[in-house]
């Protein structure tokens, strides 16, 4: 082994510095704002204020809706990824690009388009009236918000599940069949355990952005449904109350770290390197 050159020693300096200042320090700043008041004095008031009914409701709704969105995404994405992984290789490639394409567009503009489709004289309601059904108020309902979350983030569920499934060796499945495994036991004993790492990362990739969103609830919830993200936005952007905004962000971060730890406990130790 050659001695490490000066270049190899210094080459990391910009990033180490950058990461320290702009990744690590900001987390401490969030903690600082959480535990101080506007004048910089130590306080627990910011955290205490989060127990007010309004905030409690936003936490409850955020968790509830994003859990619903995650489950719905999983239920749709899992069979979707399975069907996709059994297609011919070229078809798989094209299908993957088609799943990714909306992500390359701005999700913001697509959410607007959904507003157009779901609003009171939008596409869906016009279709309903032509069928003789009364117009429905779709915008502003929990259903619209959950739908928005599923629409925005389902590609992130399909992607990792597909990527593990496409790597399952067909001969493993054949061996299972030869040893007498039927459809159901093949699914439970082989496909499900082997695709677990993809499911785990899919759940994370849908839950985290859903639980912290604010524009989906703002646009499709018509401002009537306030999630944690909306509360943070209101404190920071409208009321300039950085301290309560920081407290909300800190609690959101802790919430996410806890739910990830919980999920790892549930899913068991999954070794990502083995299959992905």
């Amino acid at each position, binding site marked *: *082994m*050659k001695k490490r*050159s*000066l*270049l*190899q020693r210094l*080459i*990391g300096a*910009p*990033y*180490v510095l*950058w*990461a320290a200042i*702009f*990744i*690590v320090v*900001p*987390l401490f*700043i969030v903690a*600082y*704002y959480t535990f101080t008041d506007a004048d910089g004095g130590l306080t627990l008031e910011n955290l205490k204020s989060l127990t007010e009914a309004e905030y409690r409701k936003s936490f409850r709704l955020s968790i509830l809706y994003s859990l619903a969105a995650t489950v719905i995404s999983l239920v*749709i994405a899992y*069979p*979707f990824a399975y*069907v*996709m992984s059994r297609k011919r290789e070229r078809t798989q490639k094209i*299908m993957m*690009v*088609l*799943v990714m*394409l*909306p992500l*390359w*567009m*701005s999700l*913001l*503009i*697509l*959410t607007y*388009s959904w507003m*157009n*489709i779901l*609003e009171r*004289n939008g*596409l869906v309601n016009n279709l309903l009236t032509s069928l003789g059904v009364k117009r429905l108020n779709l915008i502003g309902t929990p259903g619209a918000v959950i739908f928005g979350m599923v629409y925005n983030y*389902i590609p992130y569920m399909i992607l990792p599940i597909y990527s593990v499934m496409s790597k399952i060796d067909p001969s493993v499945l054949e061996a299972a069949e030869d040893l007498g495994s039927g459809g159901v036991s093949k699914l439970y004993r082989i496909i499900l355990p082997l695709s677990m790492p993809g499911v785990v990362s899919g759940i994370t990739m849908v839950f*985290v*952005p859903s639980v*912290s*969103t*604010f*524009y989906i609830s703002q646009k499709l919830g018509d401002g009537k449904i306030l999630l944690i993200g909306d509360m943070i936005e209101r404190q*920071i*952007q409208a009321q300039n109350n*950085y301290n309560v905004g*920081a407290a909300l*962000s800190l609690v*959101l*971060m802790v919430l*996410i770290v806890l739910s990830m730890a919980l999920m790892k406990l549930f899913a068991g130790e999954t070794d990502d390197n083995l299959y992905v």
Partner: protein
Amino acid sequence: MKKTLGNILMGIVYFVLYLPLIVMVFFSFNSGRGTTVFKGFSLKWYAELFSNSDIMVPLRNTLLLAALAAVIATVIGTAAAVYIYYVKSKAWKNTLNTVTNIPMMNPDIVTGVSLMLLFVFVGRLIGAKNSLNFFTLLIAHITFNIPYVILNVLPKLNQTDPHLAEAAQDLGSTPTEAFFKVVLPSIMSGVTSGFMMAFTLSLDDFVISYYTTGATFQTLPLYVFNMVKKPVRPHIYALYSLIFLLVLAVLLFTNISGMKDNKKKKNKSK
């Protein structure tokens, strides 16, 4: 039976995925002012797009920001990946990897708010009136881009043969020459894909930009977000229809050239 069910599921998912895109393109040709009632076919919104400086400024800002952020993030990120690759201490390597993961794991809103609070904090310390501006936005974009560059470059480094650089040094090149002439070319594909990823992430980012930009510098996603307080006009749909066309063209181009490459490889192996 099973196959039909699978195909029906595929059909429904793709229909729902593309419905808003279709609606967007459709209403971009609307001769009316709104985006719910189609009054007739017209290209006037496309014409307005190019005469309307209102939208050209955010578009130019977005491209400028994404290009700058992606270039800087690619340089710092590639260097960081090379550094992480050569680090010997396991504990230090783990620390670096964990810190690199933070911006990718944290929700965007937390990344945005935490950076904003840092800028405000420093701004107050030095007594600046406005602590948010173009440079804070640029710093934020570089910060969330670097981890994705590292993510793309590090696997390529792991694939390269470490003896290659040593051989170059045995043959008389300095370590620096060995890096630029041997290591860098072999990880170039990772560097390029890292750059592309950083660039597109920057183009699209709304949440982090929303918290870290000043009042004077507006990007396209911010423009779109603020616009909806007024009713949406079809010109924004026209713009995004063009962007959609561009994305489609790039995807087709890269996939076709990718297929040709594969063919070449296959022919060679014969």
